[in-house]
Each structure stands twice: as structure tokens, then as C-alpha cells.
């Protein structure tokens, strides 16, 4: 896999979480998460099941309001902004489980993006150029596509909204390794086009090949952060439950 575009980590982050605490009811699951996505960089958020990765995505995308801390977009405090407001300004999330409309065709799924992205024929032209497979399946129901194709559809629908930051939650879930590799090659290509990407992933090896920065979550906090090379030694201990 090819690496991302190597954006300088020192640049002012496009998406930043500062001291985020979040809870479901009375149970706090994030205990002060700090995370930054610099412009044009791919940041991987890793961690074992239940570490708080998806909750962090929910906070970053406006689906869950934090109980404390701040969410910054391009240096502006947007804490408490709704997910549709964040999506409108360019923070686009692909949720865990793909988030396509299974009872609509591929074409109709893309049609959903016309509200923000203009004419369907232009959208289709761009999407099918990037994902020729979707062009061949344009009249099929999204629910009848393979997992990888559904993920491509979700990705293409997100891309046509012209996002500045893309948040991907568990892209590899339920997919074969070869499909995951293909998807991450597409993600690397998207990053090279200048879109900042936050990838949440349980399977670290899949994403570290394209990431510029990575963070490992353990028990609701970011336990380690750095370049993928720096985190190699921390991965096994984080996944096996040791705190170093």
C-alpha cells in the first residue's frame, strides 16, 4: 500500500478533539481524549474492541455531545454542533456498518447526494470514473452488493459532497483482507487529493500502511500517539490489555 501524502504534523489541525469526555447515560466511556487531524493527513485511531474508538467518532461527527472538552474544526470551537451542520461544512462521516440505503439502487444512493452536490449525471460520471465496478452495478440494490462494494458506495457518496475531513469508522469490518487492501489504496489516493482523513480501525496492520499519524486508544483514553513506526512496539501491549 502506498503511504499518505505525508502532511506535516505540525500544521494547524483541521479536526481536533481536546480533553473530550463522553458518556452513555451515567457511564463515562471517554475520559479525556485528545486527538488532532492535520490538513491532508491520514490519522489512524486504533484500539481493541470497546476502547472507545466509535464513541470518539460519534463525538467528532456530532452524533454524540461530549460531557466535557471541545471539538475544534479548522481552529473554531464547534462543540455541540449537530452532525448535519458538521457534514454541511465538510466533516463527513462514514459510520460503522457502511451507511448505505440497502433498499435503494446504487444510482438512487448517489441521487441522495444531489441535494448538496449538484446534478446526478455529473456525480455519476465522477463516481464511476473512480469506481468502475459501481458503474456496472448502478441498477442493483445497494443491499445486494458485496461488503466491499457497499463500502465503495458509502465512500463515493461521501466524496461527492466535497468533504474537507473524512471520518471512517471500521472500514474493514466484515471484509476479506484483499478487499480491505483495495479500499485502503483508495483511501490513500483520496488523501493524496488533499482530504484529511481520520480512520478508526480495530485491525491496525490494515491502516498503518497509509497513515501519517496514529493513536492507540485504551480504556477511553489515547494511550499512545505518534507515527506508525513509533507505535509498532506499543500495538501488541495495547491490544493485549497492558498499559505501558
Amino acid at each position, binding site marked *: 500500500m502506498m503511504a499518505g501524502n505525508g502532511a506535516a504534523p505540525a500544521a494547524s489541525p483541521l479536526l481536533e478533539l481536546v480533553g473530550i469526555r463522553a458518556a452513555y447515560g451515567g457511564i463515562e466511556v471517554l475520559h479525556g481524549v485528545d486527538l488532532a487531524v492535520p490538513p*491532508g493527513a491520514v490519522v489512524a485511531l486504533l484500539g481493541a474492541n470497546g476502547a472507545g474508538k466509535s464513541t470518539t467518532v460519534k463525538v467528532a461527527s456530532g452524533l454524540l455531545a461530549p460531557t466535557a472538552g471541545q471539538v475544534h474544526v*479548522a481552529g473554531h470551537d464547534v462543540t455541540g454542533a449537530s452532525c448535519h*451542520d458538521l457534514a454541511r461544512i465538510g466533516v463527513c462521516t462514514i459510520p460503522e456498518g457502511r451507511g448505505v440505503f440497502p433498499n435503494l439502487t446504487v444510482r438512487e444512493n448517489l441521487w441522495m447526494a444531489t441535494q448538496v452536490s449538484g446534478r446526478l449525471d455529473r456525480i455519476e460520471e465522477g463516481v464511476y470514473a473512480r469506481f468502475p465496478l459501481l458503474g456496472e452495478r448502478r441498477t442493483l440494490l445497494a443491499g445486494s452488493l458485496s461488503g466491499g462494494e457497499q463500502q465503495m458506495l458509502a465512500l463515493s457518496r461521501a466524496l461527492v459532497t466535497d468533504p474537507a475531513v473524512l471520518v471512517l469508522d471500521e472500514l474493514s469490518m466484515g471484509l476479506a483482507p484483499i478487499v480491505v487492501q483495495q479500499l485502503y489504496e483508495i483511501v490513500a489516493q483520496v488523501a493524496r487529493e488533499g482530504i484529511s482523513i481520520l480512520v478508526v480501525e480495530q485491525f491496525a496492520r490494515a491502516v498503518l500502511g497509509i497513515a501519517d499519524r496514529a493513536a492507540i486508544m485504551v480504556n477511553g483514553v489515547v494511550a499512545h500517539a505518534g507515527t506508525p513506526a513509533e507505535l509498532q512496539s506499543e500495538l501488541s501491549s495495547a491490544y493485549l490489555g497492558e498499559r505501558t
Partner: protein
Amino acid sequence: MSERSARLEQEAANLKVSTSAKRDGVFQTVGALAMAAGVVVALVAYPLSLGKDDPRDIQSLIILAVSMLALAVAGAAVFLRYSLARFLRFWLLRQLYEGQAHIDRLVGALDKPGTADGDASSDAFSPRDRSSQ
């Protein structure tokens, strides 16, 4: 910074953070409090008026009781409006979720052997390909 990043900064600066969910909760609480306070004060004021001799005291207490009843009705309306909004939001989400789960079951059933493309019954009506309908 790229053109898109600069645009994001501009749009983030102009973003007005909506606090409608918090506002709903506040209105719901205010409505409930007004409803409770109105009923309690009205129930206290009216019996008090029965023990007064001066018509002006009686009138004042009756006016207070009626006003409090009006407050209770208004509070109930506010409480109902914001409770219903929250309930209907959850109802809509549940409908969407159940609709998607139903479609998933249908698609799963279509993938089972015997309903594959070669099967005559599925050829007659294939919801997978809308171009053929």
C-alpha cells in the same frame, strides 16, 4: 492550506452551533414546573378564598386561582409539545431502523439457495434489479 481547507475554516467560523436539543429539555422542564405550580397554587388559593369575608380578598384569590389554572394549562401544552417532539424523533428513528432491518432480511432471503438467479420464481419478480421492472 488548500482552497478546501480555507473554505472549511470560513464555514466553521460562520457555523452557529445549534443548541435545540438542550433548549427542548429546558422547555420541557419549564412546562412541567409551570403545570405543577399552577395546579398546586390554584388548589391552595381557591379553598383559601372560601374562608374570606371581604369580597376584595375573595376576588383576589379567585383571580389568582384562575390565573394559576391558566398557567397550568399553558405549562401542560408546552410540556406536551416538547415531549411529543422527542418521542416522535425516537419513533422516526425506530421506523427507519426497522425498515432497514426488514430490507436486510429480504435481501438475506434472496441470497439463500433456491431463490438465486436461476430460480423461476425469483426471475418473475427480481427486486434486486429495478431496471427490469
